[in-house]
């Protein structure tokens, strides 16, 4: 039978989302979910045959060919190591690790063991971003001059999460760094980051920022800009634009419905999606389907640990740029930095 047996580690918000998607993908057989805080009733209702509170059970099951790691970020590296040792292909949520060192180590380990390792930069599978990338790649806008990413969340995360998240650049902007690389086809060479606490003073008290603007220099000579907020009251704001010598290509916001209501006091459109899960629903399915196709056909993954490494390096540079209020080259960013710890401010 042409399917892949999968084990899932982690059943938090993103783990559940992946589980629900895997159950719906015909080529996937989600055999096991393992999480120390497993909600039995939920897993049973989804029809997952094996449920465990011991993540080791996934690695010990010889039938499982691929693991999806959606545990908390601080456990990613350890779980990837164990999956590699067990000879399983790996899909891991971003950011993989807050430090480049462990990611480099994992890249070497996975390559040595001949297992595939895909990272959850789901936007690379979003149909609109894929179409934009295709247009750019086909020369539709000529030489790229600038890339713009506007990425704003509808609801700020709770403060406990902020404390564990590694900070805005590691938790949130990493997606945007990856999108800049994806759309431009170039590497980030240098960046300048400014940030403020404008949404919630508790985010500041936790050592993080909630509003940021990052400008970037790319290896092809182009410039890019990312603007972030933790709180856009009108919904999940995800807009992208690449501008080049023969035009521009833009991805606008998506909505659950496209209804226009015109009244005395104005013209109203449907609200934007209210969460990244809704906005990137198709992308979350497509990234797993893509991963499983790579496993079945032995093809390279579309977004790998090298991409995770590049995004984390950019996050370190941004953190340092913010702290020192100056532009930082990515090759100098790692000199004295300690990531993730103690927030980014």
């Amino acid at each position, binding site marked *: 039978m042409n399917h892949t047996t999968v084990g899932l580690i982690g059943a938090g918000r993103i783990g559940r989302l992946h589980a629900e998607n895997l159950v719906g993908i015909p080529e996937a057989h989600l055999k096991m979910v393992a999480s120390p805080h497993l909600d039995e009733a939920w897993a049973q209702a989804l029809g997952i045959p094996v449920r465990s509170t011991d993540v080791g059970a996934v690695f010990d099951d010889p039938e499982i060919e691929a693991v999806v790691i959606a545990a908390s970020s601080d456990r990613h590296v350890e779980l990837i190591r164990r999956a590699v040792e067990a000879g399983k292909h790996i899909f891991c949520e971003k950011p993989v690790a807050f430090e480049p060192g462990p990611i480099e180590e994992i890249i070497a380990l996975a390559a040595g063991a001949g297992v595939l390792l895909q990272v959850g930069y789901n936007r690379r599978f979003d149909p609109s971003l894929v179409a934009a990338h295709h247009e750019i790649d086909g020369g539709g806008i000529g*030489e790229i*001059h*600038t890339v*713009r990413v*506007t990425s*704003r969340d509808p609801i700020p995360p709770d403060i406990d999460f902020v404390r564990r998240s590694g900070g805005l650049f590691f938790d949130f902007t990493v997606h945007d760094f990856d999108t800049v690389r994806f759309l431009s086809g170039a590497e980030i060479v240098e960046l*300048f980051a*400014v*940030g*403020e606490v*404008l*949404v919630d003073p508790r985010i500041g008290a936790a050592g993080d920022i909630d*509003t*940021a*603007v990052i*400008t970037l*220099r790319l290896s092809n*000579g*182009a*410039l*890019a*800009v990312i*603007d972030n*907020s933790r*709180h*856009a*009251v*009108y919904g999940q*704001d995800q807009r992208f634009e690449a*501008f080049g*010598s*023969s*035009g*521009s290509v833009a991805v606008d916001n998506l909505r659950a419905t496209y209804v226009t209501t015109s009244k005395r006091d104005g013209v109203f459109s449907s609200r934007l999606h209210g969460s990244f899960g809704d906005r990137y629903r198709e992308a979350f399915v497509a990234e797993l389907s893509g991963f499983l196709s790579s496993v079945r056909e032995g093809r390279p993954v579309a977004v790998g640990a090298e991409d995770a490494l590049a995004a984390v390096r950019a996050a370190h540079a941004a953190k340092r740029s913010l702290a020192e*209020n*100056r*532009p930082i080259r990515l090759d100098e960013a790692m000199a004295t930095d300690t990531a993730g710890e103690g927030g980014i401010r």
Partner: protein
Amino acid sequence: MKTITTGILGAGRIGQVHGNNLLRMPGVRLKAVADPFADFKEWPGVSVATGEDPDLILGDDEIQAVLICSPTPTHADFIERAAEAGKHVFCEKPIDLEPDRIRRTLDTVDRAGVKLQVGFNRRFDSTFARVKKAVDDGEIGAIHLIRITSRDPEAPPADYVASSGGIFLDMTIHDFDMVRFLSGAEIVEVHAYGAVLVDPKIGDAGDVDTAMTTLRLSNGALAVIENSRQAVYGYDQRVEVFGSAGSAEALNEAPAQIRLSTADGVRSENPLYFFLERYQASFVAELEAFFACVRDDTAPPVDGRDGLMSVVVGRAATRSRAVNRPVTVESRATRSTGGKP
């Protein structure tokens, strides 16, 4: 309505735009235009005196208000001479490329007690004015971010670039003013990246044609400006103000608001081609506002200090790009408001 007698110094492109607007404007009489290089055969017509000598205007006691549309290096001198002759002044941006020269000019204007308005026409565009109203009325709450996309449809010739003061003083200066206008705050720090991606001759002239400028504002908000000297699809002028209660966006305007849907896809018109088309109405509105403040003896809506601050920020951006560091904007306030009562 009391008629105000007016003269124009400089009959280039913008001088002619203003002149034509004045010829149709109630309550204003365009008496004379002076320009050493114009031939005046076609324009402005027999009802208006023309000549090479600026004294045609500056020496005419009947002329109460002067529009300065000559090249930038002449602005400060002409403002001072007009002010000393007791004439109110409308001057195109920038007043000068040197802040100290601008400060001296503003002192002269203050001493003379005349009005000075600077030509930041975009403040009078109805679309941007509506965004400003959304900010002022609290529709989007406290300001967190301002984002401006400002791209010209075609790059200027390299010899223009060489004398323009550079992209930040020639082009981004309007965007700096827009950030100040929309936020009601001052720009306190600037970082600018630049690149030469459109035309290597612009690079040879010591300038850049593509830029990303990050700003910190005095109210704690952040802003970013994207510039390009060449957008092949037309003049790209978009603004977004994002705040605690939402965002307000100004989109591009097209000559016709149509949607053409065919088997090839959905198409709409390109944006209005360039600033003369896009900001046509604002050029009229800024002059109406200027003459209203002359007539009613009120403060000009865009004053000398606005003219000064945009240049100070433009120089900070120029320096930031050169040294690749954020640059603090000098906070030394001008003593002058350039005609504010």
